[in-house]
């Protein structure tokens, strides 16, 4: 795993200065004097890079992604909350959870997930290791609540899975490798035929003039690109934008305090001080316990937004219009952003641009899940 870089923007800048003054580092040249060839490229949304995918592993991983036996009581699969028909997420503001639990945050899409540099809304997992994300979700009590060793034995009880496994390894399905294989499948779930990507590749007609205007705003006046950059449109950092709390976390009309139970239990297991008195989503603070990280969340991808409403860590914004309006006002309480003063036309253009980042729907048919079969007893 690559190391976490848990440094907020302001500190990163300060650290840059400190580094520049360190004796081993040449003094930073003033920007105007730097040769043009070495100037850092302006941040932008970049094309999705090719990923090296082991097709055989991904084939087994696809079965496992849709197999409910990867959860404790065999009631839900990865696809239950990451539904291909719902943009590989859920269409609800707040996620489901394991039976008798409810999630307290929005379910992120897994589209392009293996290209993210950080996982989870509170950024607690490194993006270079999708297998660990899969393990985290499958074994987490409020998500799939399965014992990893039991998952191994269940997979071994399905001859089709053992056969597929033998196409890429000599041993039996075992341990962490099973989770890595689900991660291999997730690599295949990426955006397809994205107008913006075609535009950037030279097809000027791929996006509307309105979207082109929006693109300039995105990079300029609206400043979105400062955080939403790179292949998935995320800097992989944590920011505070002041999204209002979702009141259903504390008291859900259908589920009462079940989401609050999940939230406080997450704080408790994160070792957060005074967790019993928390009544808000503290975000990154639960991970770092540094006051400056209170209410910060991982910058989400802005690809395929057309399919992944509602938005933000708690699903509080239902449409892209609402999202753009939110940012135009400078975000909510405690936001690190400034008001943008966008006109109605500019907001419309920005939304048009954001929509051009969505490709064709990525839909696949769930595979037919093979049954358990009896094995020869004593030959394991």
């Amino acid at each position, binding site marked *: 795993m690559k190391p976490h870089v848990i440094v907020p923007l302001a500190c990163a800048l300060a650290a840059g200065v400190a580094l520049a003054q360190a004796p081993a580092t040449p003094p930073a040249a003033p920007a105007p004097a730097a040769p043009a060839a070495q100037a850092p490229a302006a941040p932008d949304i970049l094309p999705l890079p090719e990923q090296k995918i082991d097709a055989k592993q991904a084939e087994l991983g696809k079965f496992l992604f849709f197999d409910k*036996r990867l*959860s*404790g*009581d*065999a*009631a839900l699969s990865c696809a239950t909350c990451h539904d291909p028909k719902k943009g590989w997420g859920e269409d609800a503001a707040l996620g489901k959870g*394991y*039976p*008798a*639990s409810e999630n307290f945050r929005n379910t992120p899409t897994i589209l392009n997930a293996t290209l993210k540099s950080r996982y989870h809304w509170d950024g607690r997992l490194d993006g270079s290791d999708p297998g660990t994300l899969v393990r985290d979700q499958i074994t987490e*009590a*409020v998500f799939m*609540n399965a*014992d990893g*060793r*039991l998952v*191994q*034995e*269940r997979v*071994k*009880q399905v001859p089709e899975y053992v056969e597929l496994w033998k196409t890429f390894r000599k041993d039996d399905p075992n341990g962490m490798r099973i989770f890595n294989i689900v991660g291999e499948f997730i690599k295949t779930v990426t955006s397809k035929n994205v107008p913006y990507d075609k535009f950037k590749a030279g097809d000027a007609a791929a996006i509307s003039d309105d979207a082109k205007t929006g693109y300039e705003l995105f990079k300029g006046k609206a400043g979105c690109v400062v955080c939403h950059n790179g292949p998935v449109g995320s800097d992989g950092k944590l920011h505070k934008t002041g999204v209002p709390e979702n009141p259903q976390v*504390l*008291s859900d009309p259908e589920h*009462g*305090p*079940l989401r*609050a*139970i*999940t939230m*406080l*239990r997450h704080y*408790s*297991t994160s070792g957060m001080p005074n967790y*019993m008195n928390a*009544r808000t989503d503290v975000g990154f603070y639960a991970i770092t316990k540094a006051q400056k990280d209170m209410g910060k969340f991982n910058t989400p991808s802005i690809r395929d937004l057309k399919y992944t409403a509602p938005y933000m860590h708690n699903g509080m914004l239902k449409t892209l219009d609402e999202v753009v309006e939110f940012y135009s006002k400078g975000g909510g309480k405690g936001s690190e952003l400034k008001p943008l003063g966008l006109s109605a036309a500019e907001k419309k253009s920005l939304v048009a641009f954001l929509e051009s980042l969505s490709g064709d729907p990525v839909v696949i048919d769930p595979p037919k899940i093979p049954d*358990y*079969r*009896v*094995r020869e*007893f*004593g*030959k*394991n």
Partner: protein
Amino acid sequence: MKLKLLATALTGALATAAPVQADFPPLGPLPPAPIPADNPMSPEKTELGKMLFWDSRLGGDASSPCQVCHEPGKGWGDGGEISRGYPGTQHWRNSQTILNSAYYNKIFWEGSVTSLEGQAPSAAEGNVAGNGDPSLMEMRMRFIPEYVARFKKVFGVDWPRMTHAYQAIAAFERTIVSDAKQVPFDRFSNGDKMALSENAQRGMALYNGKAGCVQCHNGPLASDQKFYALGVPENEVFKTEPLYQITHRWEHYQKGVFEKDYRSANLDLGLYYITKNPKDINKFRTPSLRELKYTAPFMHDGIFYTLDEVVDFYNNGGGEGPNKSPLIKPLGLSDAERKDLVAFLESLSMDKPLLMDPPKLPPYAVMK
């Protein structure tokens, strides 16, 4: 002791050929259940423990409270050969009764824990049992105001904790014991000569003599809490049912046996999982013989449905298997003797089963 004298007299009179009984602690009415010094009893604690015993929120998906595999109406077991287990799984051994579990210092068939306080977490959190995450179960209790108040009263804490929950459950379980007034053998031992039929009295003599049961099933609990291999046949479900096979392998895997044991696992290795000593393969802790009337089927894998089958098994010298105890050999009991022995075994059960109404469970509430 009066009882010992009586039993000795009977043995002496009826079974001079096999005076086994004198070497072993005699059967007799149960003394008060031992209470651990760090978990004293109180009515408030056992009342809380009863609620938690029934509360499905102590488990993964709120489907499997303690009570599901330890039902009062099924002799505080689950009535199946192999315990049902968590949804999506199967357990792999017979669910033992809670009745008189207070008297064991070795709990589970392989004696893997030594107290009820230790048993409760294994059951509530075990992946083929309750599959509950302790931090999640703890947080659930904290959102139930009545539990918050009760834990404060009983344990003096601001917030419920799982360790206290397990203590309360253990305290409740210590109240689930045989009532000597309802047990024919106990009444007989306490002087009511009419309490046992003549059959049962002859059976008692066989128990202490020719049949040799008392060699392991001794003391008031009718268990020496030691480990023996009897060659009990393996339940066929492990050969024919995928879910049982999954759990069978999983148990070997998670118990940390050597890889060769895992690869070839086709037997419940019992005490071996704890000691990893080949001499302990297939050994199980002697169960109590109290309340058998309500706790069929019998043995660690629920292989026998009736006491007749159990007595036949012993009369035939047990089964085949590794490390078989030399105490298990053909007994040569006649049909009449076997009947008498069963009559005696039945006299160790209460006249009526110990039933109990479920408690009213308090609801969740939004926390201010």
